[in-house]
């Protein structure tokens, strides 16, 4: 009991083959697309992108990967703490700081712009917490006010700069929508520094970040420096937003904080997985953004990155193994078809029972009569059994069927579950015998071996149900399986 292995949610081999086939298809499609583009101007662009020869492309790709990593990793904490709006505010607050950083030297100096932006972002957050503490204005309103005010100042400054007659002003407007190919080596260096800081911080303080995000009050009583950690997280978040700004633009950078992390949230319910998935999906979105903006020659990077992130979120929403829409529908369908099959099995069992188990084969005509359905419906039902390997047709014209050993086994189990449950309700829960059938109809499909054993013990190994019918015991089922092998 002590050293239980920690189980993962997925059964690995199954998922592996699924994932593998998914990637095979994906690369097939991409490959086809690539071949069909050969010789066109766009194909040339694709070649340039993937050959990695062009230093500008190289820089842009590395930058987008790094910023995806930073934003995904730190954004995950924002999402689980339900602070997405704070992230939004922060990303808009930095804009005036960036512009002031530019005005400082009248050229695009990454360092002054970085510090200007970081200062503006932190100032914005301080304003939020100050107003929240000292007035009765609610947090969402405060966030809205600060976000728009700072952003408006930024826009005013940008418009002013564009009227000025200075050389380095080209590209200042890129801070609104982002342009990855405008990044310099120093920008990438800054991104890399932030990435190293963020990863180190999260790895070192994972345990403290986990508990202080989940239960801040409890953390304080455990001597965990909650405010310090939150402050550090906010600092790093500001840095990552500021460094991402040139590639994504101030308007959309918040999407890179929230969307990959939210998509990851749909795929897992463990924090460490969530952090890894969020970083990975962030990087993927970054790559997609860099690629598509490059294809269309100098399109803004930010919107494409965010569209990529949104597409990833949509995929996770639709196909996520646990919470996805389609897997849920699929599971429900599987469950229904199992119940349908098991009900057919039970009917067949009762028909065989009526012949005192002299016969093995069942005419579908008789099955249809027994279940008060049409012949075609009976054929459909037996086809369902056949798909599950529980039965087969004895002839081409689909008139006679026979259960397989597995089908026989399951039919006995279901009947036993049904009758045991009826007994249990009658004797232990004091139901009237004519009230127990419907309840047993539902529960029979859900009882596992363990519960059935307990039921049998509790009921003192009965052999007849409340209506006087024999209950197949575990022993009967085993022996029946042996006898069932021969053909009668």
């Amino acid at each position, binding site marked *: 009991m002590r050293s239980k292995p*920690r189980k993962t949610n997925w059964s690995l081999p199954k998922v592996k083959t699924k994932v593998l086939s998914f990637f095979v298809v994906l690369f097939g499609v991409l490959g086809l697309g690539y071949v069909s583009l050969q010789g066109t101007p766009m194909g040339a662009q694709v070649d340039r992108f993937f050959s990695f020869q062009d230093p500008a492309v190289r820089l842009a790709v590395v930058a987008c990967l790094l910023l995806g990593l930073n934003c995904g990793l730190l954004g995950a904490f924002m999402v689980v703490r339900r602070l997405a709006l704070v992230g939004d505010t922060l990303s808009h607050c930095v804009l005036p700081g960036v512009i002031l950083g530019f005005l400082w030297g009248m050229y695009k100096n990454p360092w002054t712009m970085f510090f200007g932006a970081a200062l503006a972002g932190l100032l914005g957050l301080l304003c939020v917490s100050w107003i929240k503490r000292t007035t009765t204005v609610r947090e969402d309103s405060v966030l809205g006010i600060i976000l728009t005010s700072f952003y408006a100042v930024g826009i005013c400054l940008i418009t002013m700069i564009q009227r000025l007659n200075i050389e380095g002003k080209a590209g200042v407007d890129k801070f609104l929508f982002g342009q990855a190919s405008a990044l310099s080596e120093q920008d990438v260096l800054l991104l890399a520094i932030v990435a190293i800081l963020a990863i180190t911080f999260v790895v070192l303080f994972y345990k*403290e970040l986990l508990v202080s995000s*989940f*239960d801040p009050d409890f953390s304080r009583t*455990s001597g965990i420096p909650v405010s310090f950690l939150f402050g550090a997280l906010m600092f790093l978040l500001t840095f990552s937003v500021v460094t991402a700004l040139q590639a994504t633009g101030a308007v959309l950078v918040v999407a890179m904080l929230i969307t990959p992390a939210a998509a990851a*949230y749909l795929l897992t319910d*463990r924090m460490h997985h969530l952090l890894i998935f969020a970083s990975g999906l962030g990087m993927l979105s970054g790559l997609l953004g860099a690629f598509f903006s490059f294809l269309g020659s100098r399109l803004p990077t930010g919107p494409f990155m965010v569209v990529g992130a949104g597409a990833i979120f949509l995929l996770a929403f639709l196909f996520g193994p646990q919470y996805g829409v389609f897997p849920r529908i699929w599971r429900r369908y599987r469950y229904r078809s199992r119940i349908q099959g098991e009900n057919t099995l039970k009917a067949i069992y009762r028909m065989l029972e009526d012949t005192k188990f002299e016969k093995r084969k069942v005419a579908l005509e008789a099955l249809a009569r027994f279940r008060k359905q049409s012949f075609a419906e009976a054929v459909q039902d037996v086809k369902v059994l056949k798909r599950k390997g529980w039965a087969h047709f004895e002839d081409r014209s689909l008139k006679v069927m026979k259960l397989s050993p597995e089908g026989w086994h399951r039919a006995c189990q279901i009947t036993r579950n049904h009758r045991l449950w009826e007994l249990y309700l009658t004797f232990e829960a004091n139901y009237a015998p004519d009230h127990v059938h419907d309840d047993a109809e539902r529960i029979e499909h859900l009882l596992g071996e363990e519960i059935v054993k307990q039921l049998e013990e509790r009921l003192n190994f009965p052999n007849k149900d409340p209506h006087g019918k024999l209950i197949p015991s575990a022993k009967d089922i085993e022996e029946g399986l042996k006898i069932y092998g021969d053909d009668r």
Partner: protein
Amino acid sequence: MTKKNAAAPLEIHDLTVTYHRQPVLYGVDLIVDPGCLVGVMGPNGAGKSTLIKTIMGMVPPSHGWVKLFGQPFHKAITRVGYVPQRESVDWDFPVSVFDVVMMGRYKRLGLIRRPGKKDRDAVYECLEKLKMADLADRQIGNLSGGQQQRVFLARALAQESDLYFMDEPFAGVDAATELAIIELLRELKDAGKTLFVVHHDVTTARKYFDTLLLLNMRLVDFGPTEKVFTQQNLHKVYGGRLNILTEVATADAQQASEDKLESP
């Protein structure tokens, strides 16, 4: 206060707490002896949670002081455990039952250090004690209210403290869990731990706790249950708001006198 070991687990002196200049607690004096199972009662807004939060250093007092085992809170941290209100956290948070109980070990580990095998064993032991070991790998949102409360208590157990503060551990739990919790509390008390439990249900308070603290901004009364649990006191705390109280108190008083008649 010269000998450390002899100091009371909890000593509060003239404690006043204000929120936005509104007093929430006023002039509370209290000394709790070791091995007490204290039920803290009072109407909504009486300052029960605030009292606990102030004791544990989450809310700064505007006047007075608190000492735990003769020391300020931050020095006694390893000897004090905490069970917050169940609604105070987001149960959709991506953690498993095991992860949450492991959080109880964090303060013994200190910063940065990772939990080892000893901690994992301790966590499983605590989970076993609350019959939650089978659910260790579940995400906490998939649990019933009673199971969620058990997770919090298992986490508190994992803290291995001498003094526990619990904020409404009985709120919204099923009957079986309520029984399991009160058994656990008694077990802890018998092991010499001190427990300080916020409780809402007047009808069960008398059965569960050996000491009661009645609070309504001021400390109304504190002492052994049989002395504190009187109609007059309850009326003082809850005012005329709960008519049922009179009935409860009378019925209980009758029960008590009958017990006395039967016992010799």
